[in-house]
């Protein structure tokens, strides 16, 4: 069946969207609750990201239960924590073997998605990753997934989107020379961001016009005093600072950098500065910087006046949790509805509750309208089962009504401009998107 079953299917994420109700007689639907695993980083330094992501999944589960469940089956969630890879794997296995979950929603860490995917495949448990966006997952670790899906934009899209935003907003193409400083957390995400920001700068601006004047690699959540880094960046004479520091690292960095006067000397391009809970980026955040949101979603866009799906999601999320959703919240929320929609469509085709293998064809090639816009699930390599939505970045600006810094002047980039397309073949090192850019982008041309 492959992509045929799913192709053309456009689901919708949200309550009151025509829940499928099975007939009472001969329904062939189990009467037991559907056991749903929820596993996000809600403790430790990653909680700033994992907690809002978890809240998105929880909201979806609660909404679905309030509307009668999936085909009348109530969702019963089982929570376990996400931490380092070994601990997360162990907890996932317990969810499968002890708690006997039917489906799993998890993970924010790129260290964990490649670790869990093989387990999901081995135990044949449908698993939806809300984040953990590393290109490695479907390009190297599990290249032909059956049970594993991911809804967030792939990691390489982050760096590419941020770099394109910087070139456009900072008019970098008009500069003779661009001196770039980098500071990234020293792990897979930071390395990926560095590579893709650099390759875009060098391809679009020209390698001889781009000079790397500093590189800083603080340990993720391991540095609280960024003084030495800030001093080095200032001493380097950089024009632009490219960074993928996130959550508390970025909050600390920008607050301290304000004191050192960094923003008066350097323009900052961040892949993810505004990806944390929106109210955390306070009104002292300097305006006019590239405000990244993990290339995925910011709660103000699509604009609420013209896109009620987002307006209503933001309102319901705020009412439930008293804070605005992040891109992780949106991703986790949509992943639960994606599963629900595919199960309902499979039921309509089969006339009974589908086995996991029977749901898969209704996911591959399918699309779902979510708060962020349309998300499509790729049916073929490279990155089969990866979700794609249009990328977004913008400029930081303080909103006087909201009282915190927001992403303004959104730059929405069709995702096919920032990521390797379906069917493309090429090397996977460091990523296929990197090699696709090297091979296909025209030098000196801004592709947006």
């Amino acid at each position, binding site marked *: 069946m492959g992509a045929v079953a799913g192709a053309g299917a456009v689901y919708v994420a949200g309550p009151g969207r025509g829940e499928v109700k099975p007939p009472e007689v001969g329904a062939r639907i189990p009467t037991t609750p559907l056991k749903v695993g929820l596993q996000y980083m809600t403790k430790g330094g990653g909680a700033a990201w994992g907690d809002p992501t978890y809240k998105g999944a929880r909201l979806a589960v609660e909404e679905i239960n309030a509307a009668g469940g999936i085909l009348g089956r109530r969702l019963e969630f089982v929570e376990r924590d996400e931490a380092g890879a070994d601990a997360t794997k162990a907890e996932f296995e317990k969810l499968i073997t002890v708690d006997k979950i039917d489906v799993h929603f998890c993970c924010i860490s790129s260290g964990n998605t490649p670790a869990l995917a093989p387990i999901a495949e081995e135990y044949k448990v449908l698993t939806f990753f809300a984040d953990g966006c590393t290109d490695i997952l479907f390009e190297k670790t599990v290249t032909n997934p059956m049970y594993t899906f991911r809804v967030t934009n792939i990691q390489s899209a982050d760096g590419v989107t941020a770099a394109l935003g910087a070139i456009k907003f900072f008019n970098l193409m008009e500069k003779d020379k661009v001196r770039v400083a980098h500071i990234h957390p020293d792990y897979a995400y930071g390395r990926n961001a560095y590579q893709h920001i650099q390759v875009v700068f060098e391809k679009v601006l020209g390698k001889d016009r781009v000079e790397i004047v500093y590189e*800083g690699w603080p340990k993720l959540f391991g540095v609280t005093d960024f003084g030495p880094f800030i*001093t080095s960046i200032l001493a380097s004479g950089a024009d632009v600072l490219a960074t993928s520091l996130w959550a508390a690292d970025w909050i600390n960095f920008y607050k301290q950098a304000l004191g050192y006067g960094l923003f008066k000397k350097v323009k900052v391009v961040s892949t993810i500065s505004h990806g944390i809970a929106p109210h955390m980026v306070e009104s002292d955040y300097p305006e006019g910087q590239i405000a990244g949101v993990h290339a995925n979603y910011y709660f103000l866009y699509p604009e609420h006046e013209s896109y009620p799906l987002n307006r209503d999601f933001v309102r319901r999320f705020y009412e439930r949790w008293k804070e605005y959703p992040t891109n992780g919240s949106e991703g986790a929320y949509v992943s639960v509805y994606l599963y629900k929609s595919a199960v309902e469509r499979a039921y309509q085709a089969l006339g009974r509750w589908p086995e996991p293998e029977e749901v898969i064809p209704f996911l591959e090639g399918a699309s779902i309208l979510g708060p962020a816009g349309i998300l499509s699930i790729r049916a073929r390599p490279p990155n089969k089962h990866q979700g794609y939505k249009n990328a977004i970045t913008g400029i930081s600006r303080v909103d006087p009504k909201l009282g915190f810094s927001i992403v303004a002047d959104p730059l929405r980039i069709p995702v096919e401009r920032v990521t390797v397309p379906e069917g493309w073949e090429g090397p996977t090192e460091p990523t296929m998107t990197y090699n696709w850019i090297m091979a296909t982008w025209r030098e000196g041309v801004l592709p947006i």
Partner: protein
Amino acid sequence: MALPIYVLDTLFYSSLLFLIIAGLNLIYGILRVVNLAHASLFTLGAYATAWITTSLIVPRLGENLLALMVLPLVLGVILVILVSLALVTPLLRYSQGRGDAFQLIVTFGLLIIFEDLFKLIWGPYPVSAYNLFFQTGFVDVAGLRYPVYKLYVILFTAILALALWYVTYRTAFGIVLRASSMDPHMATALGLNTSRFLIIVIVLASALAGLGGSLYIPVASVQLGLSTEFLVIAFVGMVIGGLGSFVGAVVGSLIVSSLRTLTLIVFPELELVVLYLVAVIVLLWKPEGIGGGRGW
């Protein structure tokens, strides 16, 4: 051009480390307990000071510099002392003499409890209170801006260290402290009121950690998991400087901070590797630590 800044940042970081390691060494030196929850008191001091600053002081007194410098710090440390008396002190005293495994499990459990309490009270997001950092302004150091607040912390901690040295080596209490750390049984045999003395030691150690957190928060946000980050570095400093030793706390904090600054400049990826390597070398060459581990 940036060298003076690096030196000052090294001293700043070592000031915070000293406050943690000094407390760890006090507890180890006197009680022979390795307290894995000690850095949680640092984190508690940071959370408490942030909350006091943003919820109590600023709404009532505005950005008054003196109020910001004194009140959150004093109230924050008092809160840490009260929590220590209620929760930490009884557990540490109970752990004394019950073996390493017992102590590690109990204090690790306490660390987990603290983490869950932090999340319950202050939520999953970083908490910050940069008011004092911005209020104290910046000075020119070698052509670059440098926060006055960091200079204040360096000076404050230096004076505190001197005061601690004075108490340790020039007062009767200090004599008792050093004697107890060298031979606790003899100290008891000579009439020391062990119970009250131990409580004073634990409270003093807790206050130092809480003070560290209070001094830290104007410069950086506090978040879940911070305790573990500082605990690991502090233990390395303990080993390098000398277990249970006042001089060890000074030496360990300076060496760790210096190594950290150096690797961050030259080869940041190797920051932790270098620290652990030096700790291993010290353990092999001088197991009592560079500062000497002959008790407080």
